[in-house]
């Protein structure tokens, strides 16, 4: 029994079958990659996991509980954090404040009216946030305006925001998309570091095969909304169905 169990999920947009009978099982504290050609339904699947979309049918169980019908903030409170394809951060706030917000969410829940206490007196959370920033090598940028940083920095900040919550499951939507080579390598190193601690489950969508094969322990290949195969990276590499799916895309 994996920590995340997706069973028979279907999703249609008008006439388009975006997801058709998707089954997926992710084992706790492993790194699971979902790959597939463009339009295979990878992002749709991810959106169904975090409450942005609601599947037409099927079930999504996380840690023994259903996530369907829950709002994004409830799902996050269950222990699922998500990194977006384009970094979603609080651009108008400072880097430190960006990391403090998830700390508050972790400690105080979805809403707490702490209007008279002061942020500056929350020493414990501050330490926690600063620690996290050191982990991602951003401690020196703590007072920077988050919106003015490079894309790589924004991505690292977003990951710090997710990781500081100590989620059980971290969802990553193309974490290296649109990044310079050096930034990509930094991000891979960071991700590997997280994976090797073995205290977090990761589910990653990625186009860059270098990233996928250096990170993942299991790989699911999606094509046209249905899973083709699920196997270890070594077996996936030479799999005829996978080649067909990708080559098919190349020929079109």
């Amino acid at each position: 029994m994996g920590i995340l169990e997706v069973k028979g999920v279907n999703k249609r947009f008008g006439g388009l079958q975006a997801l058709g009978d998707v089954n997926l099982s992710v084992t706790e504290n492993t790194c699971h990659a979902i790959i597939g050609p463009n339009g295979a339904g990878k992002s749709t699947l991810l959106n169904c996991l975090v409450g942005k979309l609601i599947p037409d049918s099927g079930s999504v169980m996380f840690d023994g509980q259903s996530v369907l019908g829950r709002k994004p903030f409830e799902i996050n409170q269950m222990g699922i954090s998500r990194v977006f394809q384009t970094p979603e951060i609080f651009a108008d706030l400072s880097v430190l404040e960006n990391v403090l917000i998830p700390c508050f969410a972790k400690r105080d829940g979805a809403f707490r009216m702490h209007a008279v206490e002061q942020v500056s007196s929350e020493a414990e959370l501050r330490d926690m946030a600063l620690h996290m920033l050191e982990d991602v090598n951003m401690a020196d940028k703590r007072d920077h305006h988050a919106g003015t940083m490079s894309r790589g920095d924004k991505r690292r900040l977003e990951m710090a925001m997710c990781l500081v919550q100590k989620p059980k499951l971290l969802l990553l939507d193309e974490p290296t998309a649109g990044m310079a080579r050096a930034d990509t390598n930094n991000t891979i190193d960071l991700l590997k570091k997280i994976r090797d601690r073995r205290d977090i489950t990761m589910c990653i969508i990625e186009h860059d095969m270098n990233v996928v094969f250096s990170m993942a322990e299991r790989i699911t290949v999606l094509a046209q909304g249905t899973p083709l195969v699920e196997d270890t990276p070594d077996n996936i590499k030479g799999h005829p169905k996978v080649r067909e799916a990708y080559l098919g895309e190349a020929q079109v």
Partner: protein
Amino acid sequence: MLGLNRKDTTLLIAVAILTMFAPIILNPFPVDSAMAQFNAGYPDLMQRFVIFGIFAIGFNILFGLTGYLSFGHAAFLGVGSYSAVWMFKLLSMNVLPAILLAVLISGVFALVIGYVSLRRSGIYFSILTLAFAQMSFNLAYSVLTPITNGETGLQLSLDDPRILDGAGSAGSLPVTNLFGLEMRATETVNLGPWSWDFSAGYYVCALIMLAAFYLSVRIFRSPFGLMLRAVKSNQQRLNYTGLNSRPYTLAAFVISGMYAGLAGGLLASMDPLAGAERMQWTASGEVVLMTILGGAGTLIGPVLGAGFIKYFENIFSKINDNVLHTWFAVLPDGIEDFLVTIVHPFVGKGWHLTLGLMFMLVVIFLPGGLVEGGQRIGRLFRRRKGKQTDAEADASKTPAE
């Protein structure tokens, strides 16, 4: 001090000093001098400065922090005024229960209107709040006449019960007081050619404004304030970070509605009448303008904006053609008449034209308002000084928080 950092404490003390000495600061010109028309130290005007300051501080908690632009906040001001006047009619002329009721009732109104309006964001939110305010305005004028007294406005009358005050003095309307201290009581101090009015009503309002300002500083620096800024910056990220944005925005809406109600209650406490025109959407537009002009999202901005607009409203409205002619009298006649003709549309009854122009200019050129303008000028001076002394000062400057 008071749980604030040094910068905020300095700001608070500066505001406190300015408000406490306002009767002196705002009357810098001797009574008989030609410049006396620029004095602003009348109790009535100073009360409006601080009351609208409170209104704008509250509006800023919603608009400045969350970015939700409400076009209906005047409704809460009106509700506050009506509640206060009813308290004067039924219970007592003491302002304390009146103000408390005003805050409470406007808070309930804000809860209901906010609960509905906040289900949408962006311009839909603005239009919803606008619709609610117009609805309140129309109802106050028509069906609710038994409560609001329609077009005439709600006023005190001799046969009001006033349970706590007992049998009032016959023949004249009672005046508002705070445990016996009459709000209209004014001490005039003459010193040489100067004259200063120290009004009890003004000091009551000023102390309440200081408390309101202090509370807003606390809110700005609190985790709650941080969440509100996060709502403005990226609501989607906030939701995916496990925070429910709706109760946060609703709380901000209710708090700012209560500030508006407090301002309305104070207006009625200084002058016990309430009319529907206080709820009109142009009145809502005015508080938006105060906040923007001062600097939305800054601590001191709304107070500056409110003072600025109320001051110029007062001064500009008083200037007429005669005054203009005396100003330009030194110039040759032709030029004098020409200048008077040019300036005429913008002063006196044309004050609103100036207001509208100012609104546009601020939004176009200075979206950060007066506070940002001040900072820009400050930077300009620092840079010039830096160039003269050494170039290093510039390089070592860290970007603002």
